[in-house]
């Protein structure tokens, strides 16, 4: 999923204080799962903002709503009348949702309420870790299901580097060395020979090296 963290309240207050009526818009997808911008967080932020603004003597009508998916034009279309009734929108979706709103409602100021972080997985309750950087040419089949692009600090294709010690990355004892994990996994699978093969320099074109990417499915595109 796409992970996110809510922005500091002070930053959001700066965004909204020039307006009289705002819509706080959540998303039911990834940001709900990572507890950053779902229905519950919309409610919490609305209360927090209201209290902080009142302390500064500012009164704003904060309306709340949560869409099924903000990155989908079909759902974004549902809120035409809601948008018409407010001066600005604060989106609690990831950057994709914010941009979808900005593209559809061109004359309405749209502000992000969260910082979109990474594509990750849940390690345990309340902990998410980066697992994928969307490089567009998945090599997990060769690396034992562990991604060196997302999980090696140097994005080495032929690791580990000299900074790997005791299974940890040199940047922090809290970070596993991705190449140690890859080695352990390949060994467990009896595929050590994959490890010794030199992987050539990566083609980064599919990873955004040639600008913003797009997928066009001819069988589905209208």
């Amino acid at each position, binding site marked *: 999923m796409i992970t996110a963290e809510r922005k500091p309240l002070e930053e959001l207050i700066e965004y909204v204080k020039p307006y009289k009526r705002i819509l706080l818009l959540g998303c039911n997808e990834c940001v709900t799962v990572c507890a950053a911008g779902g229905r519950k967080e919309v409610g919490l932020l609305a209360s927090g903002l209201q209290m902080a603004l009142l302390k500064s003597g500012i009164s704003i009508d904060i309306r709340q709503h949560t869409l099924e998916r903000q990155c989908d034009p079909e759902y974004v279309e549902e809120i035409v009348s809601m948008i018409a009734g407010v001066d600005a929108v604060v989106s609690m979706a990831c950057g994709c949702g914010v941009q979808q709103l900005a593209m559809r409602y061109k004359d309405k100021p749209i502000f992000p309420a969260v910082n979109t972080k990474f594509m990750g997985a849940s390690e345990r309750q309340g902990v998410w870790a980066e697992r994928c950087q969307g490089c567009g040419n998945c090599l997990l089949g060769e690396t034992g299901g562990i991604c060196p692009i997302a999980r090696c600090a140097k994005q080495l294709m032929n690791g580990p580097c000299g900074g790997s010690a005791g299974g940890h990355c040199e940047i922090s004892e809290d970070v596993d060395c991705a190449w140690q994990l890859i080695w352990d996994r390949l060994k467990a699978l009896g595929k050590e020979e994959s490890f010794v093969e030199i992987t050539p320099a*990566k083609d*980064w074109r599919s990873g955004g*090296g*040639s*600008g913003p990417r797009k997928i066009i499915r001819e069988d589905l595109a209208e």
Partner: protein
Amino acid sequence: MSFQKKLSTKEFAVLAEMHTPKGVNIARLVNDARRIKGRVDAIVVPDMDNGIVRMSALAGGVLMRQEGIETIMHMYCRDKNRLALQGDAMAAHVLGISNIVVTHSEDMSQSDHREAKTVDDIDEFELLSALRSLSSGKDMEGFELDGIPSFTAGCTLAPWDDEKMLAKELEFARKKVEAGASFIITPPVFDVAAFDGFLDKAKGLGVPIIPTVFLLKSLAIAQYIANSEPGANISDDLIRRIRKSPDRELEGTKIAGETIAALKGKAQGVKVQTLGWEHKLPEIFDVAGV
């Protein structure tokens, strides 16, 4: 007189562009430079900003210095992060290169190493600011330097097709001047009268403007630029002149030389761009009278 001095005293500066080799054979570069020594104020050495892997501009610039010729080195942001760029800038100063043009770079997709990862850690504005910061004795993080370099930093303007694009370019240029650019190199000029109009608009930037004079090597190149870059103002008359000439290469040389001569007294100098035909520079300068 140094390039910087020419700028400050508003004298006409003649610059010639010379690319480093794709490889380590420096004979042509050095020979071409020797042939114009004394006729140019500085040689502009592009780096890999056009996306073609070649010997670095820093080495090319040092070679020019060894020949006793002042150098203006290109720097750009696509391939290096802020550490590498600052390191290169300080190295350039130590090796005798204090003139730097911060340029746009071709997208990696247009390079000869299309699979490479783009860096773009900072942009042109930030690089100009970084050079200014280094010149004041501090790096981008504010840490003090042991020995302070000095730079004369300039910037480039991208080609424009119409007035709207030009207005945008001038706005970018204004920001670059604010960030530290003390001169501006323009895209190639083929119509000096049209350039007058541009100069009026660019006057407010308050820094010397140095137009590029481009050697038209063939009719095909002239036609290509005329069709693909309307802002270049290659007129039908110019195309006709090249087409009718019994010696089109010579005609291109004459056109470049005449353009330089026509720009004297208007612009602060010229940068002559010959893209591989640097051996033609003496002839061009003969026509121009420089």
